[in-house]
């Protein structure tokens, strides 16, 4: 089914040809243009994208990453003198409470040993984002490859891969992740991300396999095969572009889920370990401080929600954009 956005049966207009002025003029668009257009018009997705970009930028530039220094003067390890009992100095309520907007020395406050909580939260955001994106990318690559091989070749390779995904789907992710994280969590957040992606690529593999099973029977694949294209070429040049919608949407939603899984694991104590920190670990560390220093609890939660929510909205926008049945752009 073609989208009603391309009613012209002949496709694009030949270059140089003058399009006659009619009551309404229709320009043909490629599939990519249509998807991009639908995505850019999805208000929720654009807001989510802006919010995510803001969080990424502020977290990586403020305290710097690796050897690169950031613009925020304080770092997340050094303790200091408690200013105003560690209360946050950020003031975003303009003039209602008598003073104007201000950032102050410790906008997110300080913890009980005087560490700057803004720097700490930014460090946690960096690690959580890193873990989530590594999981998203790695499990997408793994799942796509496994699903493509299973769907395209069928037979023994399919049986092996699918039984393996059955196996992994039986075991609750949190339980395996906790066991692995408990034993090897010392090896750092990157390792944790790799382990988690080894556990959660299976659902994408099933989706991609389903897509490939139906694509395999399409005429254009048969045509490519008849012209002597190799299996690799057919998979990567002919079939994969047709499954890209499913893959991208699933990757986005995996990232959103990964943020929450990492946070949950770190909260239970099997994820990221001190001295490194992540948003989940920050909440876990300061949950008992809720009655005395509530801001230590609010900020990391706020950042987890912002990241997960904006990624979910981006995923929703992408799903709408890639859906060929989509005729109406959601406001």
């Amino acid at each position: 089914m073609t989208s009603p956005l391309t009613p012209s049966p002949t496709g694009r207009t030949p270059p140089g040809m003058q399009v006659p002025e009619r009551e309404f003029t229709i320009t043909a668009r490629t599939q990519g243009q249509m998807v991009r257009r639908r995505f850019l018009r999805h208000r929720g997705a654009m807001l989510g994208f802006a919010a995510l970009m803001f969080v990424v930028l502020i977290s990586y530039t403020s305290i710097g990453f690796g050897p690169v220094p950031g613009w925020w003067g304080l770092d997340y390890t050094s303790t200091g003198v408690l200013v105003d009992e560690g209360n946050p100095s950020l003031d975003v309520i303009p003039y209602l409470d008598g003073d104007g907007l201000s950032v102050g020395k410790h906008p997110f406050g300080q913890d009980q040993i005087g560490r700057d909580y803004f720097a700490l939260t930014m460090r946690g955001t960096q690690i959580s984002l890193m873990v989530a994106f590594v999981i998203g990318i790695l499990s997408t690559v793994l799942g796509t490859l496994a699903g493509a091989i299973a769907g395209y070749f069928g037979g023994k390779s399919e049986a092996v891969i699918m039984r393996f995904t059955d196996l992994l789907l039986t075991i609750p992710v949190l339980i395996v992740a906790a066991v692995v994280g408990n034993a090897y969590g010392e090896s750092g957040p990157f390792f944790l991300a790799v382990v988690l992606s080894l556990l959660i690529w299976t659902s994408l593999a099933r989706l991609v396999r389903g897509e490939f099973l139906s694509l395999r029977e399409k005429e254009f694949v048969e045509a490519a095969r008849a012209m002597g294209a190799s299996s690799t070429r057919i998979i990567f040049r002919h079939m994969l572009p047709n499954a890209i919608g499913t893959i991208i949407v699933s990757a986005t939603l995996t990232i959103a889920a990964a943020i929450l899984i990492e946070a949950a694991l770190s909260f239970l104590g099997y994820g990221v370990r001190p001295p490194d920190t992540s948003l989940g670990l920050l909440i876990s560390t300061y949950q008992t401080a809720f009655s005395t220093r509530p801001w230590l609890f609010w900020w990391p939660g706020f950042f987890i929600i912002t990241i997960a929510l904006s990624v979910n909205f981006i995923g929703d926008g992408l799903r709408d954009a890639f859906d060929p049945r989509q005729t109406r752009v959601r406001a």
Partner: protein
Amino acid sequence: MAAYIIRRLLASLLILLAASFLMYTLVSFSGDPLAEFTAVTDPDQKALLIENRIDALGLDDPFFVQYLNWLGGATQCLVPGSGCDLGLNLNNQPVTALVADAFPTTLQLVLAATVLSIILGVAIGIISAIRQYSAFDYTITFAAFLFFSLPIFWVAVLLKEFGAIRINDWLADPAVTLPVAVVMGGLSALFFSAIVGGSRRRRVAAGLAAGIAGVGVFAGLVASGWFANPGMGPGLVSLGAAACAVGATLLFTNLENRRVLATSLATAVVGVAVAYGAYGLLSDPTWVTLLALSALVTAIGVGIALTFGDIDRAAAIRASVVTSFLVGLLVFLDRTVSSFAAYSDEVNGRPIATIGSKTPNFEGTFWEVTLDTATHLLLPTLAIMLISFAGYSRYSRASMLEVMNADYVRTARAKGLTERTVVLRHAFRNAMIPLATLAALDFGAVIGGAIITETVFGWKGMGVLFTSALNKFDTNQIMGVFIVTAVAVLIFNLIADISYAVLDPRIRLT
């Protein structure tokens, strides 16, 4: 079908075998179960402790022998009557007994939350599908995305603070302060403006009226000391029962259908009469008494429907069954809530609990024990519900939208059926098919996923069993939890597939 089920069960067994081996390997090599003895200073005692543990758990055996020993015990669980042995944990307690103790606790927590979130999620999903692109739809969509993105442990801590500690403080001395009034009025306004629908003016007007009325009713309740001694009393219960009857009638026909309306109302009257006729019997009943009484009311209702239903007999029976169920629920709630004052005294005025599944050593009437369970269930159930509710509302919305565009729905409309019949009898039933699958899968998964909720709220369920074992590298105990959750997932996967075939005759399982 039988062949299919048997084949699936055999395949599940193989998967279970492979998964258990994978898991046993992972756990065995993840850490040292003797590590906790490194702190013992006396070398003789240390050697003795280590030796005892090695003996008890067979830690000297080669890895495969250990696994086969465990597997041998675990396989016995499959054969009824041969005893079930999941090994000993590090404290030499049998894991089978521990798991058997913990499982009902988890089930209680998960069952209530899942059932409630299915009912709520499906209802709201359908309303937002019917009113697609309305303000209600957008609000629900946004709320669902927000709930998806909430870390459950974060919500849980917030619930403890605002849902229990602050509410308990407030209940100790109820007063209408500005924030309380704003919250109550706002909630009431939101709820009613969403229910009313229609043009923006109508919604705003309804919201304003409901907001003011909400604050008024609330202030009245506070002033009359209702919160110290809540309950409905015979008058309000009768009114509520009548409303249930009208609602049940509306669900199946319309109010013009006097026969069905009269039957439902008669059932409601019978229900209230039985509830107050057997007042003494209900002061400290057992579940058996309760079930017998509600069966009696339902039977009388069905009898009335059969006798006077005439041409509308089918609808009348349905309506009176639903009515008797709702009235029973109402009476149950009323009696439970009425014991609040006594209960609150017994727990030192902190009725809403933040920790555990019941007050230790609590004894009281049936209603007080029920209330005790309910107040302990309240917060963890809310926490789980918030998140699964979002999924159900999204799925039922999508599925309902797809069905509402189907040809047979257009046919149903074209032949002149009322919108209610189209939505409830034609569209709703078909939209529920994919949801049955989802619910089964979700239920299997949530048993393993309640770990965090249990940890935060201190429920002694499977989650706590698991985390406590993990910290000590207690292989048998971890495997015990794992095997139960894995079996639950596999069984519910099978149920999901079978239910799909049962509900949708186009699907054949081969």
